[in-house]
């Protein structure tokens, strides 16, 4: 298939970027979106041009590294899909495809389609952990956790931190990401002792990183490749408010 591409090119973090047109012929519909970009980059290198930089790692949909804004949607038009799991068969021959980086003040562009998502790391560092004794792995049955609780906690833990929630949010809010982390640990007995402190610290870090507020439009859960529910945002709000009310 033949496709037209409009790709955001930006020299470095300080440079002015712009959309640049490319054309690719003979694209195999079974290629993934990233493989299509690989083909483009090969051609650019052969021509002596700079290849388009983009984030990627596992290409199996589980690492959260790839994240592109494709045709106006985070990770493209397919539901519950990361960019690497999007395939060219979902486009038509002759299509024009817009490719842009995820946008928000907290995710500055490093180069082309690559963005700096270390704001997420700092939110995790603020409280997305449990303080526990290190040493041998504990006996699995020493701490019983009900099946439903384990499943619900795992639903939140499935967040891969790709940033699609921020990219699609009209307020550039990181509430779904932070909510998933707070909610995951708040549901489990290991995470419970620090739940109040965690909620306060992570919420404040989210603020300090410059993310916007949550207006509960629900767009993030629609675009989330892991289909994480906005109920986890409500649970974060609950944990935060509970921490405030019960503060000693």
């Amino acid at each position, binding site marked *: 298939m033949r496709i037209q591409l409009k790709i955001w090119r930006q020299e470095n973090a300080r440079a002015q970027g712009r959309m640049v047109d490319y054309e690719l012929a003979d694209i195999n519909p079974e290629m993934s979106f990233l493989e299509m970009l690989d083909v483009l980059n090969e051609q650019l290198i052969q021509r002596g041009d700079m290849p388009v930089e983009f984030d990627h790692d596992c290409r199996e949909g589980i690492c959260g590294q790839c994240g592109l804004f494709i045709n106006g949607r985070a990770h493209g038009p397919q539901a519950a899909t990361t960019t690497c799991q999007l395939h060219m068969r979902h486009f038509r021959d002759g299509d024009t495809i817009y490719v842009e980086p995820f*946008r928000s003040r907290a995710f500055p562009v490093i180069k082309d389609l690559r963005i700096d998502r270390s704001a997420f790391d700092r939110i995790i560092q603020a409280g997305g952990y449990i303080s526990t004794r290190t040493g041998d792995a504990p006996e699995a049955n020493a701490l019983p956790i009900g099946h439903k609780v384990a499943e619900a906690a795992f639903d939140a833990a499935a967040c891969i931190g790709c940033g699609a929630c921020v990219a*699609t949010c*009209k307020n550039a809010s990181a509430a779904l990401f932070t909510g998933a982390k707070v909610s995951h640990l708040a549901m489990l007995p290991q995470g419970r002792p620090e739940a109040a402190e965690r909620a306060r610290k992570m919420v404040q870090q989210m*603020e300090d990183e*410059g993310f916007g*507020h*949550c207006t509960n439009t629900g*767009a993030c859960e629609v675009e989330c490749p892991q289909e994480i529910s906005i109920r986890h945002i*409500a649970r974060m709000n609950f944990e935060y*408010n509970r921490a405030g009310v019960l503060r000693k």
Partner: protein
Amino acid sequence: MNRTLSLPNNLARKNLMALTGLFLCFFLVIHLAGNLQLLLPAERAQLQYNHYSELLSHNILIKVVSYVLYASIIAHAVYALVLTVNSRTAQGGQGYAYDKRGAASTWYSRNMGLLGALLLAFLIFHMANFWYPYKFGEVPVDAAGRKDLYRVVVLAYREWWYVALYVVSMLVLGFHLLHGFYSAFQSLGLYHSKYGRWVKWAGQAYTLVITAGFILIPIWVFLTKPMP
């Protein structure tokens, strides 16, 4: 502009939006219930409505609640503005060249600020028409010697454009409530899936009753009430 208004983060600011918003939702129920008296036959409506108005404006408890109400409206609007400005900043300067994000949410949930601004404009107009003359202006008296607010209302609703403006404004209110009622509970932390669903249904039912009620009153008065 002060970006925080003395609250530490967006969650705290959203809590305030939710609490003031829910209080305003509660006010709308009382306001609609009182105004349903306008649907009574003309003579009874006039006496009863004027009596009710006088009762409200002379009750100390109502007076206290009304100040809470004014404060809620102002706080809801001021914090909405602060959050909107912060949201602009958070998005960063560069927008998307091709933007189809709208497909993932409803238009009214994304435009609460615009709907709210329209409501504020309507509210100023509404208070200038009824609240201000009743409190500070010249109002004729009825047969019982009470300020004839009923007459002021019926005179206003004799104009078709006035009725049309009210109907449109109440539709704006309806969409604001449709998202706002549910969103307030979500902001405060209602995460339970079953009760969350119930709150969503309750919000839809509430919106329907409030919107339909406030649309019905001006139309009913326009169609049935003779000049007092």
